[in-house]
């Protein structure tokens, strides 16, 4: 019985953190767009966090001498019909975009986790009932669902978060339930049961950790969806209230003037499109790197 098992030290991969960095470096090499997209997304995030220092003007500062002014040295992206600097409003708008995006995905993920866990673990009528509830949520497009919510709850940033969050519970619940069913069937769960570990501990130590990870990957992908839905709500006038510098709202405000002063809608629209594409690519890259099912085929 030798303790000299050489292949351990020769294994190569030694720590999880360096494996993470290596994985990200892998993605950068294989998909250069990932790098660009990540930079763009990070730039937006930076703008959101440091908005007061980055933005040239306050978002609701109105300059009566520069109403609907085209892009110039003083206002890089022009101004809107109230004289507010578009660049500053876009920068402050990233705060709302990320805030709504993260928070609603959080609500959706937590709610989805609870429902999916209950459905996957309890089975029987409980599972049937919960899944029908989820089916009902999924039957309606998230925008329509969110509109329905707003009409009940009223308008405002927090109401938008609740509305979009609730709509996201459905897809999360589905994936969590599928993951729970799959993890439950694994040998290590049975092995723990054989050892005498009680059910709650098995769920906490064995099932939950293996479900949370794919959930997090899902969540990062859905942030862009949440931002899109919330912008749609604001565009329809059902989301946040003016003068909140929300991009959807800004696009809607410029709608009437689009043929004369296109930049009022154009600037926030471009920002929205850019962020969504960047987040999409980043989400794809993360999923490809970390989704075990996809990875197995490489």
């Amino acid at each position, binding site marked *: *019985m*030798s*303790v000299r*098992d050489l*292949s*351990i030290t020769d*294994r190569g*991969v*030694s720590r*999880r953190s360096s494996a993470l960095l290596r994985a990200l470096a892998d993605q950068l090499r294989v998909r250069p767009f990932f790098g660009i997209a990540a930079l763009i997304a990070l730039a937006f995030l930076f703008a959101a966090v440091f908005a007061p220092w980055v933005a040239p003007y306050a978002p609701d500062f109105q300059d009566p001498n520069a109403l609907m002014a085209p892009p110039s040295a003083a206002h890089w992206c022009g101004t809107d019909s109230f004289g507010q600097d578009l660049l500053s409003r876009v920068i402050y708008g990233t705060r709302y975009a990320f805030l709504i995006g993260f928070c609603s995905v959080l609500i959706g993920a937590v709610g989805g986790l609870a429902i999916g866990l209950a459905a996957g673990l309890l089975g029987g009528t409980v599972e049937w009932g919960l899944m029908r509830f989820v089916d009902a949520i999924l039957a309606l497009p998230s925008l329509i669902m969110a509109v329905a919510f707003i009409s009940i709850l009223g308008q405002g940033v927090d109401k938008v978060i609740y509305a979009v969050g609730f709509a996201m519970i459905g897809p999360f619940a589905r994936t969590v339930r599928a993951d729970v069913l799959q993890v439950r069937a*694994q*040998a*290590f769960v*049975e*092995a*723990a049961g*054989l*050892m*005498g*570990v009680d059910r709650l501990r098995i769920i906490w*130590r*064995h099932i939950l*950790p*293996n479900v949370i*990870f794919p959930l997090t990957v899902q969540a990062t992908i859905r942030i862009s969806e949440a931002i899109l839905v919330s912008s749609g709500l604001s565009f329809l006038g059902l989301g946040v209230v003016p003068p909140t510098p929300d991009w959807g709202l800004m696009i809607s405000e410029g709608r009437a003037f689009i043929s004369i002063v296109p930049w009022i809608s154009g600037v926030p629209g471009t920002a929205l499109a850019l962020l969504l594409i960047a987040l999409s690519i980043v989400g794809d890259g993360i999923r490809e790197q970390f989704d075990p099912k996809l990875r197995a085929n490489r």
Partner: protein
Amino acid sequence: MTDASPIFQLLDVEKVYQIDRGRWSRLGRSPPRRLAALDGIRLTVQAGDSIALVGESGSGKSTLLRVLLGLTGSSDGRALYRGDDIETLTDAKRRSFQRDVAMIYQDARASLNPRLKALDLIGEPLRQHALCRAPELPERVASLLARVGMPADTADRYPSQLSGGQVRRVAIARALASEPKVIVADEAVSGLDVSTQAQLLNLLRGLQREMGLTLLFITHDLAVASYLCSRIAVMYLGRIVETGPTKEVLRRPLHPYTRALLNASPRFFEPIAETLPGEIPSPIDLPPGCRFAGRCPRAEPDCRAHEPPLGATHLDREVACLHPLID
């Protein structure tokens, strides 16, 4: 507690699955088909025994294991652990059952939670059965790892960072953690490189002898059975067809199926031996009589009429055959 009762006893255990013919069968009321995964199993395991359960697919060896571990209930017959029915153990007895009987899975990697380090994996039975205090845990884990031939720093690794052979050793270390009296292994060394397999076999044999463990080892490989276990039980389509001391059974098999298994194992420089005709039949709705009759080179008319019971021949050997190979 010196207990003269055998560790495991299976008394005419049956495990039957009903298979629907399809959704329309319930309308037409045609009877569902019967899959007898286990059919009339009688087996006794004494303390300190090492028994190999040998069989091919459909033999029921995995189902037998699951019945022994209490993971599946039997449809008929009784499965006893130290004289008590496994399905209805009291809480205290169940706890001691869970501690005393440890399992090593065929797919060792799947039996380890990929999100836990080896320290936590091996420590789980220690914690569960309160076998040592928390500060002593790392030391105990290190000594268990040393016992299976692994360096102490393995404890910090995740299963994904270990090779196939190393993962098996961690699984074995975990099985040993609860200081079991019985180890049950389902093809624990198959699918490994021969050198790793040989190392693990030496390990298991050494542990069994050192610790006086009772070993129940499922394998399809007769040579592994012979190396590791003093007794062998050969299974075919849900029944035990022969039992006895391993070396004896393999030197002079009594059942034609055992002999066919022996012939089928490749031996150095011998030409490929006469093969058994046909495929292993489906265990669904078996015809009456001996289930091996369809492929047996020695089948007689009475073989298709009567199911041979597992009967003792001479000391310590049993065979289920109407015309055993006594020559």
